[in-house]
């Protein structure tokens, strides 16, 4: 194809650099998928702010760079959540660090690098849970993902400790692509922590896609904590399919991030499912934190509950877009969504858009979106009782988002997030 304009030239340069840096993508094991995604990347334009789903989030700063790939030596302990009792799988710039990782081995459960699992032919349905053909960035992930975590939990199995996936972005100008695949079989229960961090002087682009299949009566719980220093562009996608009587919970806590785009996509395919999406974000300076969620109720008798709370400071930008589809067959759906924000300065921006599309008539659905200022009267009240201004603001910030963080079941992780929150509210 002939390159026709500057935008295409930049895209070609971007893809060319990635082709050179990632010559052995995971999807090599699935040639057709790899070719399809490469084809899409070439033929479809990359999303711009003219694309509705990317209206407030610029991708040009990612696409206009020629990324490379290097894997520096990094001590994971310096970044990991303290005192966390978990199986830990460490990635640096997308590459698995076996010597810094531990994983369980037992009958009925498999936890291993996705590359190994794919090569052994153990992954059923790889790439099928995600990759809507028009999602350019998901195709990008498919074309270049170098590794990830594969978890298969057999029928009625449970792992006594959570699986903790730690991704560290380090060095300069490095792109990193991870792809995870979780399959929770009937009646099984899986608890995953996804933690992404970066060196203070790191500059990078990190793309991560998680595919999840939650079978009948099974449960998948994900705590996703993003705390990247430095200048990292992170695009994180979850695609989860729920079978009947299953539970899926995900909590996204974005403590820090230069540019973060989260896309949660939940397909509720079976009846009597419960889906819970909670999130909080607290951008400062010029950070840009974007949460897009989609819950697709396709069948009757399911419930979803979604609460996102944000505090936007300085010149930062927050974006929330929550889509809920209730299909014609999805009678008796109970869907609740709430997005509440506090804007701390005149320069901070928050774009909040609930989108409910309801085609069934016997449902209970509600949504609410509020964006307001910090209550200065409350700050004064607390100061008038002897609290310093800093303590007063911390207390109020904490009070606003605490319902999201306090509900983290794991003590070590909750403490880590509370500490991050305190650092944030000190500004």
């Amino acid at each position, binding site marked *: 194809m002939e390159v026709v304009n500057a935008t295409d030239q930049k895209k070609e340069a971007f893809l060319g650099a990635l082709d050179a840096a990632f010559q052995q993508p995971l999807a090599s094991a699935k040639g057709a998928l790899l070719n399809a995604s490469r084809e899409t990347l070439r033929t479809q334009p990359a999303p711009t702010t003219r694309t509705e789903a990317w209206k407030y989030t610029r991708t040009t700063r990612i696409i206009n760079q020629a990324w490379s790939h290097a894997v520096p030596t990094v001590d994971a302990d310096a970044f990991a959540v303290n005192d966390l009792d978990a199986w830990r799988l460490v990635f640096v710039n997308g590459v698995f660090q076996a010597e810094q990782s531990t994983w369980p081995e037992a009958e009925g459960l498999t936890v291993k690098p996705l590359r190994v699992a794919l090569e052994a032919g153990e992954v059923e349905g790889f790439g099928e849970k995600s990759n809507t053909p028009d999602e350019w960035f998901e195709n990008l992930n498919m074309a270049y993902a170098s590794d990830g975590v594969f978890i298969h939990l057999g029928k009625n199995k449970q792992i006594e400790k959570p699986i903790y996936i730690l991704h560290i972005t380090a060095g300069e100008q490095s792109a990193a692509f991870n792809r995870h695949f979780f399959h929770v079989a009937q009646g099984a229960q899986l608890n995953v922590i996804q933690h992404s961090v970066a060196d203070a002087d790191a500059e990078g682009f990190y793309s991560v896609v998680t595919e999840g299949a939650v079978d009948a009566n099974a449960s998948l719980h994900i705590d996703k904590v993003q705390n990247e220093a430095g200048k990292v562009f992170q695009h994180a996608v979850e695609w989860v399919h729920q079978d009947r009587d299953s539970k899926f919970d995900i909590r996204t806590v974005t403590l820090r991030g230069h540019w973060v785009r989260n896309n949660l996509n939940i397909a509720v395919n079976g009846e009597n499912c419960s889906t819970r999406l909670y999130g909080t974000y607290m951008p400062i300076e010029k950070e840009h934190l974007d949460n897009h969620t989609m819950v697709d109720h396709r069948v009757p008798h399911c419930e979803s509950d979604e609460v996102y709370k944000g505090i936007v400071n300085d010149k930062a930008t927050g974006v929330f877009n929550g889509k809920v589809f209730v299909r014609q067959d999805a009678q008796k759906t109970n869907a609740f969504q709430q997005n509440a924000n506090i804007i701390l300065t005149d320069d901070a921006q928050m774009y909040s858009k609930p989108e409910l599309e309801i085609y069934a008539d016997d449902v209970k659905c509600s949504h609410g979106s509020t964006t307001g200022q910090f209550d200065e009267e*409350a700050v004064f009240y607390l100061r008038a009782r002897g609290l310093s201004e800093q*303590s007063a603001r911390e207390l109020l910030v904490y009070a606003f988002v605490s319902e999201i963080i306090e509900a983290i079941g794991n003590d070590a992780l909750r403490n880590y997030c509370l500490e991050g929150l305190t650092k944030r509210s000190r500004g």
Partner: protein
Amino acid sequence: MLKIKNLHASVEGNEILRGLNLEVKPGEVHAIMGPNGSGKSTLASVLAGNEDYEVTEGAVDFEGKDLLDLGTEDRAREGLFLAFQYPVEIPGVSNINFLRAALNEIRKYHGEEPYSASEFLKRVKEKSALVELDGKLANRSVNEGFSGGEKKRNEIFQMAMLEPKLAILDETDSGLDIDALKVVAQGVNAMRSPNRSFVVITHYQRLLDYIVPDVVHVLYKGRIVKSGPKELALELEAKGYDWIKEEVTA
């Protein structure tokens, strides 16, 4: 205790206080009355350090310190307490946790050790009984869902916990029924001591039946235009403020 000299203050360019003078000695209770818009609540806000108000002239000495030079929290730490006319509801912040934090910050300011959990709880129990504040309210979010009377009792409860040298009660009696008023007054009276002073801002003489003042002042157009013994309050109640206005303009 408190010496206010020629205090001028404005909000959004409008001068509200126009040369106010007031001296409160240790152990005294001063009532400040006055018609709507005379500057009563402005005085309370300025003393507490509300930055919406700009002090353009004058001085305030509190226990030998320049009060206007101190931030809101340092005024509280030095022993000034304001019972708010409209206590703020603060969802998610527990009454008890915030009070513990406040008390300990005050103690730290004075170079004292923080309270232990048991000392603190003992104090909570004792002081909440003083204003008949339900223990459950003490544990709830600050003022959230409290009735008007509960909010005012919570203010007095906080005052009892913080044991200030000078308490300013800004229309603490407004909107209270007589039973609630008695409870509030009882809390205040229990705290009266030779070393503690009160400035009671009120619209109604009724409160002064229960909290008996040493001096009553009339605030009008941003200045204290008349001061007298407690009987002055009764006279104001009976005759309204028009005669004062006439006296001032005469």
